[in-house]
């Protein structure tokens, strides 16, 4: 057995030696656990989970996205809430969500059990899409010049506050939106 030396002193001579029984056992446990965790995120959960990270994205000019979002609001608007347009997109359809300092537009009304494709982008700075349903939340990053594409299927009715969780300026805490899920 090579002589062991303090962590603060220079080791002398040959200090390389094989693993003892204790270390071998522990190293194998960590290797197995590392591989298990990798298999879980890469293969197991993608097969069995209902909550998948399958974000898509494409680049867009912020002005183009803004006009697409305006057109979307005009087409499907069903009312207003606090002066913010409320839209009810067709089930299975696209939902444009337009972020700006400091508002989410529009308020979106969805049907429970239907799948929607959210197209989310920003007109100005970075924002954080955070749909709060305590004790959980769904969060994705929103960048100007990129559209974050996210498929969502609400399975619970109610009102879900949409907040911003990426600091976007001194009015960050004023930025709020809403998603309403009905039967």
């Amino acid at each position, binding site marked *: 057995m090579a002589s062991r030396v303090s*962590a603060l002193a220079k080791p002398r001579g040959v200090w390389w030696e094989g693993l003892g029984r204790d270390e071998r056992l522990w190293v194998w446990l960590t290797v197995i656990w590392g591989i298990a965790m990798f298999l879980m995120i890469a293969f197991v959960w993608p097969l069995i989970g209902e909550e998948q990270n399958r974000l898509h994205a494409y680049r867009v000019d912020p002005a183009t996205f803004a006009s697409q979002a305006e057109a979307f609001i005009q087409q499907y608007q069903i009312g207003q809430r606090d002066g913010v347009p409320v839209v009810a997109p067709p089930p299975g359809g696209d939902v444009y969500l337009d972020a700006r300092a400091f508002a989410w537009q529009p308020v979106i009304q969805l049907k429970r059990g239907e799948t929607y494709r959210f197209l989310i982008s920003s007109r100005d700075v970075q924002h954080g899409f955070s749909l709060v349903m305590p004790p959980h939340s769904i969060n994705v990053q929103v*960048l100007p010049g990129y559209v974050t594409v996210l498929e969502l299927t609400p399975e619970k009715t109610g009102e879900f506050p949409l907040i911003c969780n990426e600091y976007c300026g001194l009015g960050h805490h004023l930025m709020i939106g809403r998603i309403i899920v009905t039967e």
Partner: protein
Amino acid sequence: MATAATMRRCEITGLSVDRSAERLIMLNAVTAVVYLTIGGVLALLIALTRWQAVHLLAPQRFYEFVSTHGMVMLIFWILFFEVAGLIFASTVLLSTRMVIPWLSWIAYLMMLGGSVIATVLMLSGQATVMFTSYPPLRAETPWYYAAVLVFAVGAILAVVHFFVNIVAARLRGDVGSLPLFTFALMGAAIIALWSLLSGALALFPVFLWALGVIPEVDPGIYRLLYWGLGHGAQQVNLAAMVGVWYGLASLTTGARPLNEGLSRIAIVLYVLFINMGAMHHLLVDPGLGTWVKNVNASYFMYAAVMGSLIHAFSIPASMELALRERGYRRGLFEWLRRAPWGEPGFAALVVSMILFGLLGGISGVIIGGPQVNMISHNTLLVPAHFHMTVVAGTTLAFMGIAYYLVPLIFQRQLLFRRLAQWQPYVYGLGMLIFGIGMGLAGHWGVPRRHWDITFSTAPVLGVNLQELRPEIAVFLAMMGIGGIIAVIGGAMFVAVAVATVFVGQRTARPAVGRIVPEAFSPYPAIAGGSGEPAAAAAHRTFEVPGTLVISVVFLILFIFLYGFSWFELSRVPWKIG
């Protein structure tokens, strides 16, 4: 050049100390503690604002202070201290000279100038862009970015000097194999080099853009480069902290690493794989494919996590063996009961390892998966994770080793020893309460960097998250109360350090305990023990059964929490993807 007058021989450790290295260690360490104090005061004010029932600061002040707190703590405090550590590990610990003192002076002055200007600009509201300074959010003045760049270049020079010192010591024949402590800091220095370069690559175009020289900066590419620094710098802290852990184990129990090679391989695993952790911040970004995320999020097969798990075993194992050699051999845990719990360095080591491992490390692995990240990205769970790693882990470990290195380097008697003995426990208790409160609030969806989750001033669509789920108020109160206790613990450290440095009695032989001298010697004499090997029947039975039990219990807890996180994800009432 290396005349006798420029070196002194330490009467306690027998090391030859280069006077110019010593001066620069003092300067960097004192500057670090000044930043720690500033950051600590800001921490208190921020915690008392996020504690919704107190809600102390006005919004603009709050965001200014969060920006400043992030930079001051994550970059300035910790890098100044690490530069002190790099100089120590590459000169004093090797009993060798500092090769180019003026390079370290330039590095120090650049870091000082850059950090002071950046801090003043942030505190005066001219750079309220947070630690991350994501474009296209723009600081009021482009000089903020310039100041940070100057700091980064200074830090790069300090890191380069570390390598110069080591190579020169090697060429001169002063050193063969490096001490494990220096080896770990070399790992930290390698990671530091590319993190700082990545940060400079991210920030330089932003500086040009803020000046109006280039029209725009791609926010997605900025995030990729920026997180090479943002997360990379924390991996520097990790590697440095692990080095300090080994050092503290040797200083307080006379531990000698169980298997030198294994511990070094674990550090190499950090260097090779931990940079992938930078991608953890981009898991819900647009623009990156699933497999980029999977491979990086898992540090490829969790090789870097394996490194940490090896240290988590090796360090207690080496202490168990050292204490068994001292005669504490009964049962599984006599060595642990008889360990020096009243020794500030040992207390700091144990509290730092427990909080880092149990809360910081496990939470990092959990939220670093691309799927679970969707329910934690940018919530308070993220700062809860890195406060457990960088504050409860790294900062406490650094405080612990300061109790030995400050008296030895400054040649002063440690003052307020009682305060130092209690400090790690007070600080740890505060961080524990703080971290649990903050983490739970994050899991409940409370966002980070947010002034008011009651949305009391929102003009439209307001909603009060605390009314939605009243337990959130309790979590935020825990964060506030834990924060107060931790700040008291931090202030205890600052009191001990400042008193020792400025009014401690000057002496060439400060009292640092009887184990310390042997911790620096390659020929250890076992103080107080019978000296015979602990495991007489070596290899027939386990050498460190107590540590194995602790480690396996830790792994079971890890597996349980990991499984629980997937269960929580499955309970999200919406289908995603």
